[in-house]
């Protein structure tokens, strides 16, 4: 036996491998993530030895890269794991080769240390345009953040000073223009595809953000937690704002602006949507808010919202369609690399 397609009839050993080697998420998570049982399955592979042992796994989340009038098949590879040891040395590369052959454009964001060493040897290139941005929302978080960067003798005063910054950190409810409203929804309706078509022309190159894909990633996520807002301009839906709140490894309530779209001819709306997300997240108890983004107008919006840039998130790509520029200008957000999917 060798490379197998991860499908609905995959042996239990594959699910056990994923839970033990990747993350203890359970069968429902893996079924959701790799769309097992749907027509979109078939974008993950595993290596099985003749004795039944699973030696490695690579999983891709399928998407479409929309550039101009055309959308090209693409996929993010998000799980790539191999059993350590002599037998596993070539399994990872074999699985990656399989993934490369399966889709036109294969991408990944960040990657492990091993991934970052191996990909350049295989001719992969990287773009450093996506960056992580962070804004503290609570004095507790600000104090912890500052104290960890201060010498030990200064940590007490730093925490005390941060405690006084509560007023500075407070988010005010932004005054949206009279014709703009944010409407909470459970999922995006059929009419949202028209909105995406309009926005795609303005935001391309970008990954598809139609209602099927947004609902799959956010509304249908087995862990829940995504908050979806429709942006209405007048009576028409014109975009969206998605955020989520969870707990980070240090126990802080982490808010994430997952994605937003707005009529790009109204640049002031980007900053207002960012402010609105910050206010909603602070009201929900977030200690800080972070986002990943790649384009100048959104960077200007978060800078105006007192975010600080924390550093680039390398975007790796294998090959690109002929009519698509390098990823330096692509519209990338947390939607494309949200760790919660993993």
């Amino acid at each position, binding site marked *: 036996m060798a490379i197998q397609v991860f499908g609905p009839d995959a042996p239990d050993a594959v699910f056990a491998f994923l839970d033990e080697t990747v993350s203890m998420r359970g069968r429902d998570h893996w079924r959701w993530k790799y769309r097992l049982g749907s027509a979109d399955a078939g974008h993950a592979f595993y290596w099985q030895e003749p004795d039944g042992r699973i030696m490695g796994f690579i999983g891709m989340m399928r998407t479409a890269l929309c550039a101009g009038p055309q959308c090209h098949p693409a996929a993010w590879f998000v799980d790539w794991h191999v059993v350590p040891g002599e037998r*596993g040395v070539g399994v990872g590369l074999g699985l990656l080769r399989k993934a490369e052959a399966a889709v036109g454009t294969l991408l990944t964001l960040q990657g492990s240390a091993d991934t970052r060493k191996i990909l350049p040897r295989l001719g992969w290139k990287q773009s450093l345009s996506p960056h992580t941005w962070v804004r503290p929302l609570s004095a507790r978080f600000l104090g912890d953040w500052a104290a960890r960067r201060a010498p030990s003798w200064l940590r007490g005063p730093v925490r005390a000073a941060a405690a006084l910054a509560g007023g500075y950190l407070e988010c005010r409810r932004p005054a949206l223009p009279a014709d703009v409203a944010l409407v909470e929804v459970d999922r995006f309706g059929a009419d949202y595809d028209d909105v995406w078509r309009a926005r795609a022309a303005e935001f391309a190159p970008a990954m598809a953000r139609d209602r099927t894909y947004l609902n799959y990633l956010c509304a249908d996520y087995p862990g829940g937690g995504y908050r979806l807002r429709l942006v209405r301009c007048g009576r028409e839906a014109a975009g969206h704002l998605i955020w989520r709140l969870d707990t980070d490894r240090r126990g802080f309530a982490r808010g994430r602006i997952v994605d937003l779209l707005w009529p790009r001819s109204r640049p002031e709306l980007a900053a207002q949507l960012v402010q609105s997300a910050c206010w909603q997240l602070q009201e929900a108890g977030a200690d800080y808010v972070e986002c990943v983004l790649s384009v100048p107008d959104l960077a200007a919006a978060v800078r105006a919202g007192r975010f600080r840039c924390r550093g680039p998130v390398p975007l790796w790509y294998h090959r690109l369609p002929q009519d698509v520029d390098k990823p330096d200008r692509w519209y990338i957000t947390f939607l494309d690399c949200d760790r919660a999917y993993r």
Partner: protein
Amino acid sequence: MNANSYPLRRGIVEVVSGVFGLAPDVVEQGVSPDRVENWDSEKHVELVVALEERFGVMFEADEVPELTSLEQMEAIIARHG
């Protein structure tokens, strides 16, 4: 190994020798991930790329993990013509 495969085997030995920093006569005695100390995933990538460049082939995904001995390298490369 027959006489026709001699240049192929010699080329493989040269590639393996270069990738792992081993003397050709050591390589000729046989190599495998459990016999070569620094044969890890990263080195395997280097080996695969070097073999492909040397012999002008592109290995199938299923073949890549099998390139772990001189005999298997020779058989797989020969299969590519």
